[in-house]
């Protein structure tokens, strides 16, 4: 039964981790949706809270000592926050698949890849050993591993880095998930391998109609794969828009700053990359007002530095900037292709 509600609906999610200085809020009232048959990218630098948001959504922060302070995560109509671990386990790996940055640490070196994929299928689908194995081979075939039947009987160390990531993807899609969460799946790979993995993810998404929640720090990857983009900075969503709008006319100075700092963009514009000054804001010392204000070249004393800035709709997207309306044309003009 397909309904009009989004597949994944994150509302005002706040996550805290303990520190010597009390609980630190590393995800602060984050809201976003992942629609059905959609690809959403959450983009941010280290410390932005992008990975924790994803982990919190599927109940993976508590084992690490964190806590969900408030908020709700609805997946396919079910509330995940507060759900017991046993129930969550039934959903994770089945209706929600995962891929992580480092495929080797997610695969058990002691079992063949076929056994590991079959194990996931058996746990969630209760298939017989033979059927599960068949399913595993099919999954490997879907991620274009040549002669899947024989390679299924090999161990993870017999695969190259890019191939291991394919195996991970095969494992995550073996149960036909409705949602695939990919946390920096290509960061550890070479660019030529990355290009193929992105191509593969796009193809799998198109063929199966599943949704993909893709977490990355690379705006190039975002432009390549996303349909909708959520930009995070300092534990908050600072901008959210369709991919064409976001790149065509970024509304937040951070988004436009990130683009301007990219070497390829600088080359295109024919000058040195424009660095964002300073360092990334950290959870123990959020600046007052806008969290990006100490690094922002458009900062206005008072407007940007005193009260917290709300996330407000503008031009079809959402942006958290007190000067968004007046900066609209300035930031738009700064783009490469306009």
């Amino acid at each position, binding site marked *: 039964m397909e309904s009009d509600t989004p597949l994944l609906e994150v509302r005002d999610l706040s996550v805290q981790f303990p520190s010597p200085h009390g609980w630190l809020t*590393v995800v602060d009232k984050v809201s976003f949706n992942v629609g059905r048959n959609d690809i959403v990218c959450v983009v941010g630098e280290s*410390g932005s809270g*992008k990975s924790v948001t994803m982990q919190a959504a599927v109940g993976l922060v508590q084992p690490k000592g964190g806590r969900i302070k408030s908020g709700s995560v609805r997946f396919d109509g079910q509330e995940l926050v507060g759900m017991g671990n046993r129930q969550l386990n039934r959903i994770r790996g089945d209706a929600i698949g995962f891929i992580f940055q480092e495929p080797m640490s997610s695969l058990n070196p002691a079992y063949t890849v076929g056994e590991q994929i079959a194990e996931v299928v058996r746990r969630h689908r209760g298939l017989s050993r033979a059927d599960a194995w068949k399913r595993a081979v099919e999954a490997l075939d879907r991620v274009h591993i040549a002669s899947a039947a024989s390679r299924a009987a090999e161990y993870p160390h017999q695969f190259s880095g890019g191939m291991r990531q394919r195996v991970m993807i095969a494992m995550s899609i073996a149960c036909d998930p409705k949602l695939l969460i990919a946390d920096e799946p290509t960061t550890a790979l070479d660019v030529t391998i990355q290009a193929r993995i992105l191509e593969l993810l796009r193809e799998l998404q198109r063929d199966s109609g599943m949704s993909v929640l893709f977490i990355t720090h690379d705006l190039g990857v975002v432009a390549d794969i996303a349909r909708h983009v959520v930009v995070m900075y300092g534990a908050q969503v600072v901008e959210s828009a369709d991919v064409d709008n976001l790149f065509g006319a970024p509304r937040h100075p951070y988004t436009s700053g990130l683009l301007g700092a990219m070497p390829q963009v600088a080359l295109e514009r024919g*000058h040195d990359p*424009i660095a964002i*000054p*300073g*360092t990334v804001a*950290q959870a*123990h010392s959020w600046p007052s007002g806008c969290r990006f204000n100490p690094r922002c070249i458009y900062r206005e004393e008072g407007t940007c530095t005193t009260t917290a800035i709300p996330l407000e709709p503008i031009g079809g997207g959402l942006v958290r900037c007190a000067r968004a309306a007046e900066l609209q044309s300035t930031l738009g003009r700064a783009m490469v292709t306009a």
Partner: protein
Amino acid sequence: MSATTINAPAVALPPTSTFIQRFCRNRTAMVAAIILLAIVLIAVFAPYIAPHDPARSSLRAILKPPSAMYWFGSDDLGRDVASRLIFASRLSLVASLQAVAIALVIGMPLGLIAGYVGGWVDTIISRCNDALMSFPALILAVVIVGLMGPSLTNAMTAIGLVYAPRIMRVVRGSTLSVREEVYVRAARATGCSDTRIILRHVLPNVTGPLVVQATVLMGQALLAEAGLSFLGLGTQPPEASWGAMLGTAFPYMAESPVPTIAAGVVISVTVLCFNLIGDGIRDSVGRMRRSGD
């Protein structure tokens, strides 16, 4: 504005909890540390704390039960057990320290060399080490004392020799992993000599596990001293260590159990303190992790 580097603003540096802060949060280890500190203070200020002269015997007070006068009773020569325990703490602690110091002096350089140089040097040192470690420690100490003659210094030297391989093994293991760190390669790229790399870049980064091991060995050495003295191979009368006291009190256990129990409890508590502190240090040493998301 052209893209020149902008001076990094004076950002508030991230708070990282220090080793001390983390250790203080470990309640068990803190309690152990406080008890041990108290024992050390008692040892240092023994003459001011002890109610009696530990060496003075009184024929009228042989094997007395505990009383207001003699807290833990008196021994077979009519000496005050409490005072003797207080004074014995000096000998026991210093003896353990001596053993661990010897173990460190021998084990640490060998461990650093074996781990850093590797190859056949490592093979030779490690094999000798394995051979020594496959011997029961106390028996080995008994043999060494047997050869050198019974005295506390000899006994503790023997214990130190026996413990050196354990220090060596810990240091070698840590050195092996530190040697592969990028900053060691960076030091070589800077032009540091091997000696400098070992002393400035490797040694400071193996001290964590080393301190843990040394602390635990302090407890072990205390026990070994007690064992050897109990057997009459360590502390010689009229000096008193806890082990020696246990040894002299033990034959009278039936008539007067308190001195034996008191010595035993003091030894156990001190050893336990060392072990708990060692655990506490191990848990607190962990490298400051970078703040990822």
